[in-house]
């Protein structure tokens, strides 16, 4: 039996909503914080998926996105390192189309089926931008999802799949643009999703001797809330079979969208249920998923979609969102311009910076971060074992709030944190509300983008109040 062994999701904390001045739209959508992107959200979803699991059992990783930070430089390798996966694994970015998530799932299933991997991690993540306040901006949200595909211990079997490849420009983005564009609405709808998705679903049903009534839920791509409902009718599904597309809570999360709806369906499903998953873009991917025993256990251990939807904060102004996306700059305190990092120094300290490894002394057991050669406690030399700090919780020992150093996240909260089990770190704190800060508050680690300078996207771990 081949299918999903574990799932995880990540939806950013912040929302645009009816309380957001200048947004002018009642439905909420999830927006990545200024220091998040598709890489950081993929890492967060991956951590949710792998919570309590042996990360050394993962044989490969596929990163599906249309918003990779680099066009030449793999994202999957960075995510795998941040997740502290093994070195002898395969990795690939599956990109350039909204269907990439469901396609990465197919590739992972094929690898496991072929026996070249026992388990593959699929992370699908997107942080797309559209022209402010247009229809696409209103419908799109940011988020990520992760699926561990395996043949043992599966909680949701993928029974059958079907694929169509269909070249067209309906919604697209050129490599030199930051916002997506679309052709005339009626063309996009009628010759795009309303032609291709029903064709693929019908062909899938015919090929597998299945019908719409065999499925408890259908999780599919669409363009907006209205078209989502209409598309169900076109595909001949009843209203109660449609998995809530979260258009009024999260928005269309691009490559992650159909898989995120599938995870949301798994959070409610019982053993024996069937879920149809449909990805769209330059064609269509259809997967049929049968829920198995063991889903309850995974559900309890994961934050998944539901807990992330609930743990939110609505932004006060749309300007703040524009600042986060670099579409608006405001005057700040005069400071020197940031220069690009040293790439060789970054590479040399991959364990400290990306893996967030500390070291634990074999002689005395003292845990210290960053990794040291000579033990700070007993002074033993080169007697250290690496220890992963990124999945530990910590408490705030002391903190301060910097009102002068920046313009994006004022005040910048700097916190000295003590990790549970030992180790300390001077950290930036993100996703924080000023009125919740206190000495002793529990925090967890979150992989974030520090800045982009000199063509380098620089990532590091920050502390954040425990999300859920």
């Amino acid at each position, binding site marked *: 039996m081949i299918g999903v062994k574990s799932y995880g999701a990540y939806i950013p904390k912040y929302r645009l909503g009816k309380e957001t001045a200048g947004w002018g739209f009642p439905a909420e959508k999830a927006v990545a914080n200024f220091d998040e992107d598709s890489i950081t959200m993929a890492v967060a979803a991956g951590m949710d998926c792998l919570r309590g699991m042996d990360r050394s059992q993962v044989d490969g990783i596929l990163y599906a996105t249309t918003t990779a930070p680099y066009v030449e430089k793999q994202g999957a390798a960075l995510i795998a390192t941040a997740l502290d996966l093994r070195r002898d694994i395969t990795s690939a970015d599956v990109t350039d189309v909204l269907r990439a998530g469901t396609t990465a799932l197919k590739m992972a299933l094929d690898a496991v089926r072929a026996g070249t991997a026992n388990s593959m991690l699929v992370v699908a993540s997107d942080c797309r931008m559209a022209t402010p306040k247009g229809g696409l901006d209103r419908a799109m949200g940011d988020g990520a999802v992760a699926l561990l595909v395996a043949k043992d211990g599966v909680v949701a079997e993928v029974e059958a799949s079907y694929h169509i490849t269909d070249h067209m420009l309906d919604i697209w983005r050129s490599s030199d643009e930051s916002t997506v564009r679309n052709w005339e609405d009626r063309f996009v709808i009628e010759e795009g999703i309303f032609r291709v998705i029903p064709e693929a679903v019908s062909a899938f049903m015919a090929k597998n001797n299945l019908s719409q009534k065999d499925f408890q839920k259908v999780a599919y791509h669409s363009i907006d809330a209205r078209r989502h409902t209409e598309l169900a009718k076109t595909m001949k599904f009843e209203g109660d079979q449609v998995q809530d597309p979260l258009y009024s809570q999260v928005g269309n999360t691009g490559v992650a969208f159909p898989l995120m709806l599938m995870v949301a369906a798994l959070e409610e499903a019982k053993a024996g249920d069937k879920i149809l998953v449909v990805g769209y873009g330059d064609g269509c991917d259809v997967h049929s998923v049968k829920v198995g025993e063991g889903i309850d256990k995974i559900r309890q251990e994961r934050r998944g979609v539901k807990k992330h939807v609930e743990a939110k904060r609505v932004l006060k102004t749309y300007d703040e969102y524009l600042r986060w996306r670099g579409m608006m700059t405001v005057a700040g305190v005069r400071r020197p311009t940031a220069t690009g990092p040293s790439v060789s120094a970054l590479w040399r300290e991959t364990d400290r910076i990306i893996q967030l490894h500390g070291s634990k002394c074999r002689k005395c057991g003292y845990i210290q971060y960053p990794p040291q050669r000579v033990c700070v406690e007993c002074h033993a030399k080169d007697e250290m074992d690496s220890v992963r700090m990124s999945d530990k919780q910590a408490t705030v020992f002391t903190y301060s709030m910097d009102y002068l150093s920046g313009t994006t996240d004022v005040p910048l909260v700097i916190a000295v944190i003590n990790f549970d089990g030992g180790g*300390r770190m*001077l950290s930036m704190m993100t996703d924080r509300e000023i009125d919740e800060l206190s*000495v002793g508050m529990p925090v967890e680690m979150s992989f974030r983008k520090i800045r982009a300078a000199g063509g380098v996207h620089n990532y590091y771990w920050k502390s954040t109040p425990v999300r859920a």
Partner: protein
Amino acid sequence: MTEGIKDRVAIVGMGCTKFGERWDVSGLDMMVEAAYEAYEDAGLEPKDIQAAWLGTVASFNTGQPAAEALKLDYIPITRVENACATATDAFRNACYAVAAGIYDIVLAVGVEKLKDTGFAGLTTGAQSGPGVEPPSPPPVQFALAATRYFHTYGLSYEEGKRVLGQIAVKNHHAGSLHPKAHLRREITLEQVLKAPMIAWPLGLFDCCGVSDGAAAAIITTPENARKMRDDYVLVKGLGVAVGGRQGMLRDDYDFVSFPENLAAARQAYEEAGITNPRQEVDLAVVHDCFTITELIIYEDMGFSARGRAKEDVESGAFSLEGDLPVNPDGGLKCFGHPIGASGLRMIYEVYKQMQGKAPGPPERQLKKADIGLTHNLGGRPGSFTCSVAIFGRRD
């Protein structure tokens, strides 16, 4: 067999420039200003200087700028850098060379030109390397100590702010009286509490000035000093302690006391034979880069009981009229903080007070100034260079 530095070297001349935003002069100009005041004070000529130590953190490299400014032709000059303890460490190395019998007369000069960067605050120590460390300029780093101090001793934000504010008010009063100080105006506690926030919980008046300035000292043996003047000042003890980021590597480092302070003070007190600092020290010029730093220094130097500095602040014990005046020249807060000059500026205040020649109005001259202490703290909570120096009047 070690002998220590006590009574083995003497200061026979000192100079200090006006501190402040010295847009019209360069670092070289300020070295001339400070050194020539010292020469005149000592009754010496530049040619009498046999070796020199130049302290500067960010303005110059090598010993050559001192040679260029002062035309010290082809003598040994060493550039010293040790964060905010730079000037005191330059002075210390100069003392050791004299005590070792290598030279008779040497010069220590410290200088910093901070106001040419085009930015307010400090821009030194800009990151190179991976570029992922939290941007945490000095106010943020010391705010971490303030937050933890308030937490540890049960002070509410308002209570803590009032204690710190009284230190700022005290130092502004002292600074207002010193003709060479950078910030020369009195402030009220009300103003401190209402000032803009810089790095919570530290506001504008919790932070010291960023200044240009230079200071210099001429050091010789006590035998030579006796021939030169009656009111030379003796070095009684020198301590330096250097941290290695223990405060970040160790999760039991408490942020309310700095081990470097304790270690440097212990070295200096032992050398000077001081066992009860609160009773024996007559004045202290300490590193009040932020008000919280001065508060912690009271406890770490043994002036106040642990966690009880608040009571001494409230009783006025460290004011000009108190039993142990601290920063009678206004401190870093108001005299200013040209980093590489600050340690020598502190020694200048101790030296002048001991000679009964405190610059400014008569009320600035302390009645008793037999034993004086200077203290520098460079770096940030978790990793400091600390220097403590103790001076005495000649017997």
